[in-house]
């Protein structure tokens, strides 16, 4: 093997180039965020934190931040919790596993665009599925606007994403629960522990890695909901459902304010890096013995 190390190195060239390009783009973006680039031609004029101060003084930016926080809070916690409870019940039930997790997991193979088209129809106030069913049940739906109302729109989207991602949490937890030594759970049951105790006091502390994976991956998903926002509401009503990547897109491609768009990317980068870097350090163990 030693003789072939140069060849082994050659196999790495493409990925080295790709990784290099990726980090190069991050640096480039960083530099652009400090220039006054507007319009089509690059202007490499250093303007310090001007783009950031303009960004932070935008009311719209803070609406976006608020929505990103809503996504973090109301999307991750229920999905992680629901996924864990379902995984516990399914594992405990011991049958029908194969069919049931597939039902929950298959929405994950769909794109946010498909989910968005489907759920935008379901939420349509006048002719959508949800209000039609509610009317059948005799509910007065005239005030239930769902995604048409700024107060509820974000939460409606979160429900759609919950529908799509519950299966992901379920599968990750199911795998983790199966990895726990059987005797440990059995011992707790013999001691007369209730299901609640077994699930939350015995199993949950032992599937910390699954919780870490789910939380991190779902947090990154909250950046990717750009597609869902685009197709369901286009950020509206007003700007009430915008998330940061959406603002970045608008600033860059509609207002052609490249400097400010890049500044927004830096905010997203900071937000993602806080989660991705610790996670990567932890996940690294899987590929190399550190």
């Amino acid at each position, binding site marked *: *093997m030693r003789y072939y*190390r140069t*060849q082994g190195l050659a*196999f*790495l060239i*493409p*990925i*080295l180039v*790709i*990784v290099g*390009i*990726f980090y190069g*783009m*991050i640096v480039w*973006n960083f530099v*652009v965020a400090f220039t006054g680039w507007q319009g089509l031609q*690059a202007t490499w004029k250093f303007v310090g934190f001007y783009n950031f101060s303009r960004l932070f003084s935008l009311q719209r930016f803070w609406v976006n931040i608020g929505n990103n926080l809503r996504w973090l809070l109301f999307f991750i916690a229920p999905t992680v919790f629901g996924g864990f409870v379902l995984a516990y*019940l399914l594992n405990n039930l011991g049958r029908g596993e194969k069919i*049931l997790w597939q*039902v*929950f*997991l*298959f929405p994950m*193979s769909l*794109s*946010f*665009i*498909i989910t*968005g*088209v489907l759920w935008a*129809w*379901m939420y349509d106030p006048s*002719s959508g*599925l949800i209000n*039609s*069913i509610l009317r059948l049940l005799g509910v007065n739906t005239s005030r239930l606007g769902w995604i048409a109302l700024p107060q509820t729109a974000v939460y409606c989207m979160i429900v759609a994403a919950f*529908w799509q991602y519950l299966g*992901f949490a379920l599968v990750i937890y199911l795998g983790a629960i199966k990895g726990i030594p059987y005797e440990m759970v059995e011992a707790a049951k013999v001691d007369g522990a209730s*299901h609640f105790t077994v699930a939350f006091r015995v199993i949950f502390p032992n599937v910390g890695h699954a919780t870490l994976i789910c939380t991190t991956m779902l947090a990154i998903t909250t*950046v990717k909901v*750009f*597609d869902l926002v*685009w*197709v369901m509401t286009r950020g509206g009503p007003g700007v009430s459902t915008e998330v940061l990547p959406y603002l970045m*897109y608008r600033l*860059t*491609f509609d207002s052609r304010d490249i400097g400010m*768009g890049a500044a927004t990317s*830096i905010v*997203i*980068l900071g937000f*993602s*890096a806080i989660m991705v*870097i610790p996670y*990567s*350090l932890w996940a*690294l163990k899987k*590929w*190399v013995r*550190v």
Partner: protein
Amino acid sequence: MKEKSFLLFSAVLLVVLSVVWMIPIYALVTTSLKTQEEVALQKYLTLPQRLQFSNFARAFQALKIGLRNSFIITLSATFIAVFVGSLAGYSLTSFNFRFATLLFFLIVVVTFLPYHIVLIPITHILKSLALLNTYAGLILIYTILSAPMATLITGTFFMKIPPELEEAAMLDGCKPFLFYLRILLPVSLPGLVSATILVFIQIYNEFLLGIALTRGPEVKPVMPFLAELKGTQIAQWHIQMAGALITSIIPVAVFIFLGKYFISGLMAGYGKG
């Protein structure tokens, strides 16, 4: 007795929930087969009276260029990304390079960072290479964004291959590239399938780059077309649903027939497996 009622409770809960989870899909399929008059009645849970396959013809008409483009782009980029990624995965897991840890770390980070943060440089690079609105440009970008994930997934599978296999092959005079091509890839075929599926679905489902890097319909992938269909066929729910169904056939078929590999790919990419 208590245990039995708990089992019954969880069975009922799971079944009810899975029915709820399928309602959107049921409504999608039935609505896509109805006439506009039926749709206007808003009885979404009833079955269509006569199957309206013409809805699909209409939706397909609107989506077909996008489907063609998506096939060309997704298949090429997936092939290149998995090839590049698996070569890197092989090299990183077999040669004990001292910098492998650092490189793996850099790869893991770019795999999980959302690509939205480099959208602006991506657009700029393609513009300066005159590759905006070309197949080559989209294939290039999707390859760059997917190869790191392919490296991680294939690497996980390659690590399970006993090193003796490689040593034996080398003693018989097998060169590394031939070992990779003739022995390693066939032996870890499940890993290769998993990586291919995950990369394929990810690229096929991608939307943002599809709108940012194309102008006009010539090379635009299918997801932007579907989003446009929603914009142009307002309240034509049956056409929209038919379009959503056509677009989802490929990922759903992959999921149904190769679901096992989808899971093991997810596990290899994110999980502990």
